[in-house]
Each structure stands twice: as structure tokens, then as C-alpha cells.
């Protein structure tokens, strides 16, 4: 039982990271129908921002310092996300979707190489900002790091949900996602709504990057590739365009990985080799049998 519990904790940790990153994919898709493949690389830059702040700020290993580093990295990544949209995607808003998709892939490669140029290929070791200890949390034995990852992920997801549902800018976002032209006619500034979407998505992606680098201790230019793709699978699994779906999908993918690595591997030794294959098989099955995902609505194509 103890073992099952420990593995579930691992699943919550990875799941939180996937959920955070998946939200960025799903929000951008919801607003401008673009699969932003550069999102995983914004996550990577988020990790590098955290690395820079962690190694330059004097009080980085205090609890307040960790939160400050998180917020600064999120802010930096938000600015980055907005700039990416303004520079690369804005002009293509009326272009065929395939053009925008190719641009996104190009942007992803550009960001990876930019990181390679600035930070070099050798992995940077992320300082252990959060102690590697375990705490007793309401009778449960949990690593402090998972407490941070899970706690802050849920906090920011709740804040995002409230923002989208309860505030005027959130309402504007929902309006733009339903019908951009109608929203514009109603006096909504579509450009600033899109910028806001990129800022929020990138900030949450960066938070995922920060926790990824804290959990797995290293930062390197291709860090965002695999978790980015898996978060994309999570977004599709939950129903792309649906924020709640992205969160659910993220935790399900985290659970799938942990079940493969931690349980299936006990009865079947080779299972750890197949973890990535299983995750991407999910993508194929969802696209084949339920393209709208778990929480997504089936949209009839208008003629």
C-alpha cells in the first residue's frame, strides 16, 4: 500500500508538470486554432530563467525566494510568449493554418538553437532550491518538492479557471475563442486578448519548466521537447481547447507513465522501454476514436 501511495505521489508530480504545460497548448488552440509547437521551448526557457535567477539572487533557497524565482520566471516567459506571437504568428492570422503550424515548428527550432547559443549544450545543474526531504502532511509522507509542485500547480490552475470564468478579460477570451469576428464587432480588442492568452499560457508553461528542472535537476536546450510533446498529447486527450481537459489530460498522462514505469515494469521487465510509446499511442487512439477528447465538445463542421 505504501508502495502504491509513493508511486501515486510520483504520478502527481509529473502529472502536474504536464498539466501546466498542456494548458498553454489548449489556450492558444482555443483562441487562434494554432498548435503552438514552440510552447515546449518556452517551458525550457522558463527553466533557464529560473536557473539564472536561482544562481544570481542571494536569498534563492528560502521559501520566499523560491516563490519569487517562480514568479519572475513566469513573468519573463510571459513577455517571451507575447513577443513570439507578435513577431511570428500575428501576420499569419489570416493565412492557411498549415503556414502557421510550420512557423510554430520553425519557432521551436529557433528557440532551441537560441538556447544552445546562449547557454551551450552542456546541461546546467539546477540548484536545489527546495530541500530534498520528506514531510508528514496530514499523516502522509510526501517529498517537500512534490508538495511545492502539486500545490502551486493546483493554485495557479484554480486562479486561471477563476480568471477565465469570473473576470471581464476572461469573458473576452471566451468570446474570442467562440467567434473572433463577432467578438471584434462587440468591441473586444482581439489583439490584446490574444496577447493575454499567450502571456498566461507561457507563464504556466514556464512554471512547468521550473518544476521540471527542480524535480529532475538539470536544464538543457532540448529539455522542452519530450515534455512538450507529451503535454500536447495530454491536451488532445483532455480535449484540445478545453482548459479543464488539459489539466485532466496532464494528470492522466503522468499516471500512465508512472503505472508503466512503476507497476507494469514489475510484471514485465521491458515496460520502461515502452513508456514513451504508450504515451504517443494514446494520441493515436484519441485521434482515431474520439478526436474531441474526453471533455471536448464535438463540433460540427459548418458548410
Amino acid at each position: 500500500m505504501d508502495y502504491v501511495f509513493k508511486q501515486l505521489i510520483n504520478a502527481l508530480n509529473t502529472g502536474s508538470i504536464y498539466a501546466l504545460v498542456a494548458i498553454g497548448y489548449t489556450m492558444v488552440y482555443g483562441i487562434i486554432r494554432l498548435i503552438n509547437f514552440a510552447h515546449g521551448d518556452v517551458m525550457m526557457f522558463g527553466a533557464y530563467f529560473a536557473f539564472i535567477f536561482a544562481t544570481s539572487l542571494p536569498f534563492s533557497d528560502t521559501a520566499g525566494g523560491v516563490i519569487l524565482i517562480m514568479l519572475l520566471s513566469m513573468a519573463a516567459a510571459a513577455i517571451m510568449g507575447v513577443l513570439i506571437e507578435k513577431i511570428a504568428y500575428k501576420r499569419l492570422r489570416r493565412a492557411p493554418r498549415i503556414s502557421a503550424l510550420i512557423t510554430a515548428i520553425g519557432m521551436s527550432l529557433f528557440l532551441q538553437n537560441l538556447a544552445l547559443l546562449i547557454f551551450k549544450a552542456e546541461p546546467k545543474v539546477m540548484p536545489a532550491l527546495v530541500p530534498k526531504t520528506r514531510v508528514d502532511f496530514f499523516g502522509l509522507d510526501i517529498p517537500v518538492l512534490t508538495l511545492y509542485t502539486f500545490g502551486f500547480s493546483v493554485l495557479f490552475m484554480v486562479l486561471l479557471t477563476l480568471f477565465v470564468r469570473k473576470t471581464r478579460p476572461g469573458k473576452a477570451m471566451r468570446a474570442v475563442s467562440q467567434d473572433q469576428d463577432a467578438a471584434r464587432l462587440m468591441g473586444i480588442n482581439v489583439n490584446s486578448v490574444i496577447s493575454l492568452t499567450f502571456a498566461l499560457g507561457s507563464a504556466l508553461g514556464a512554471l512547468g519548466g521550473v518544476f521540471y528542472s527542480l524535480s529532475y535537476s538539470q536544464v538543457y536546450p532540448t529539455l522542452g521537447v519530450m515534455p512538450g510533446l507529451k503535454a500536447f498529447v495530454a491536451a488532445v486527450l483532455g480535449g484540445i481547447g478545453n482548459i479543464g481537459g488539459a489539466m485532466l489530460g496532464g494528470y492522466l498522462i503522468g499516471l500512465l507513465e508512472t503505472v508503466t514505469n512503476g507497476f507494469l515494469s514489475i510484471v514485465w521487465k521491458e515496460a520502461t522501454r515502452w513508456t514513451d510509446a504508450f504515451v504517443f499511442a494514446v494520441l493515436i487512439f484519441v485521434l482515431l476514436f474520439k478526436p474531441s477528447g474526453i471533455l471536448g465538445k464535438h463540433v460540427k463542421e459548418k458548410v
Partner: protein
Amino acid sequence: MKKLTVLIVAIIVAIGLSACDSGEETIKIGVIGPLSGADSLYGVAVERGAKLAAKEINEAGGLFDKDFEVIAYDSKGQPDEGVNVYNRLVDQDEVDAIVGGTFSGVTLAIKDLAVQEGIPVLTPTATHPDVTLDADNIFRACYTDSYQGEVAAQFAIETLEATKAAVFYNIDDAYSEGLALAFIDAYEAAELTIDDYTFNANTDDYSAVLTTIQSGDYDVVFVPAYVASVGAILTQAATIDFGETIFMGGDGWDGIEGDYADVAEGFYFVNHYAKTDPAQNVQDFVANFTAEYGVAPNALAALAYDAVYALHAAFEDAGSTDRAAVIAALADLSYADAVTGAIAFDANGDPLKAITVIQVVEGTHVVIDKVQGS
């Protein structure tokens, strides 16, 4: 018109000069290793070790009135890239011998080409058993994966008295698998408990498998992998309560004390040499290397340094840089001054030398034991 003539003459002179330049006789040693990327730690060490040896040889007057020239190319740690740079070294630079590839995977990739062309290859660090198999011209300065894994298991069984052990290795890496299998064999031969666990090259998340390993309550967990992976594994293991379990590794752990001293504290690995070894030639090498590059040499640098000196001795024995003669000289070589232990090759081209067991203590290497191979 006059200008054009001047230009043409200038170009011809330039070409002539550069031709003269490349015609100037040196003894060329090609070095292949990952000089960029996550594993550049290893390639750069090999390049530096080789260049230091060449520099010392040249300061002592070179050989046959020629200087040694080390030409190092980046394999990025990838077999296909290794073949590209091998071709460049052989066809374009016309090297006399090759010190490389640094990784077993890369060395295996260039093996067939090197055998066909009869180039003397002395790999400093490729530990996979197949590297020297059925290849008269390929030698290595390090011991093999299987020997290394065996000695590690022997140390775990005899000194650490570990009756229950686990192996956690990288399934995508021949080096990692080679050590793991030898370790497993030794444990099975001793009729002790051994379990194996694997990870992929492109994973960062080891937490689920580590949790499984932790639940097995092992005395020793053997992790034969390179520093980038080992560091991440030990860091994640630190958040899981492993109690008294001891982690062990092979020569891929060399350098672990740099970024991961706190999570590797008290753990053991087997290596080619220890920079804290008090022997005079070791301390001279460490001092010279540190003076040249500002960092202490790791085992790979030491092996590359030895490899260039061993080639120097072979050229001397052969009396020329003729490939066939050099290969014959290498086969009969006995080079006693090596900092990683005296080098003499067996019929395969593998050296018979002592293995050092090191414990990481407060960020430095402490020599625990030296085991001589049979």
C-alpha cells in the same frame, strides 16, 4: 590588367605557401570525441590529455626530428558523426594514428573502416568488449566493460558484503549495458540476489523506477552510466528515502564530485586512476595538466595522455610511422610509465592493468582499493 596579374600571382603564391605549410612534416595523431553536447566533458578531457602529451613530447624534441600534432574533431558522441570525422582525419588530414573514439559506440562504428584501411587505432576510453575483437590494428588504453563490471561486483560482494544488489542501467547505451551484464554475471556466479532495472536515453524522470528499486531494499544499487544521467538519478534518489543502500558506478562516474558531490557522498565507483594517487608520475601529470588547463584531469584525460605516449613508444620501437610496423610495435609494446598503470596488450589488444576503487568523500576521491586483473 596589371592589377589582375598581381592578384593572380598573389593567389598562386598563397596556394604555394599553404601547400608548403601542410607539407611541413609532423607526426599527426587524430583524436575523435564528443567535444560539444551533453557529454562534451569526456571528449574535451581526451583532447586535452592528448594535447598535453604531444606538447611535452615536442618540448623534449619530438620524434624523428618531427613534432607531434594532435588534430581533434567532434563526434558529438554519435556513431554516424564519428564515421564522418574519421574519414576527414584519414582522407584529408592523413593522420598516422588515431586516439579515439572516446565512446564505445563511436569506436565500434569506425572499427570496420579502420580495419580495412589498417590505421593504427589506440582508443583511450572505449571499454566495450567488441572494440578490439578480430581487429589486429585496434588497441585500447583502458580495461574492458566486462572486466570493470566484474571488479565492481567483486568489490560489492567482498568489501561491501552486499548480498542483495540491483543494477539500474541505460538500455540505449552499449557501455552501460556492458558493465551491467558483467556485474549481473558476477553476482549470479556468486549465487547472490541480483535484479536489473533499465532506463531510456531520453528520459529525465527516474522517480517511478527508483521508487520500485527503493521498495526492493537492496544493499547496493549499481548504476553504470555517465555523469549527466547519474547526477540526475542520484538527485532524485535523494528525495526518496534509500536508507543504508549504497550506490555504485563505473568510470562514467568520473567527475561526479563536480556538480553532485552532496548526492554522491559516500558512494563508490571503479576507475582507471585516482588523481589523489601519491605516485610521482601521477602527481606530475596532475600538476602539469592543472597548470595547463586550470582544472584537475579526470581518468579520460589520463588515458588519452597515456595513449599518446604509448603511440610515441610504438613509433620509436617501429623506427618509423609506417602503419604496419606501428601496429606490430603496439602488439609487442610494454610501456611502464603510464599514469593509469603499466600498459602491455594481450592478444586482443586489451591492456592488463590494475583497477582503482574510489569513494566520493566530501567532494574528493579517496582511493579505497586497487585490484590487479588476471
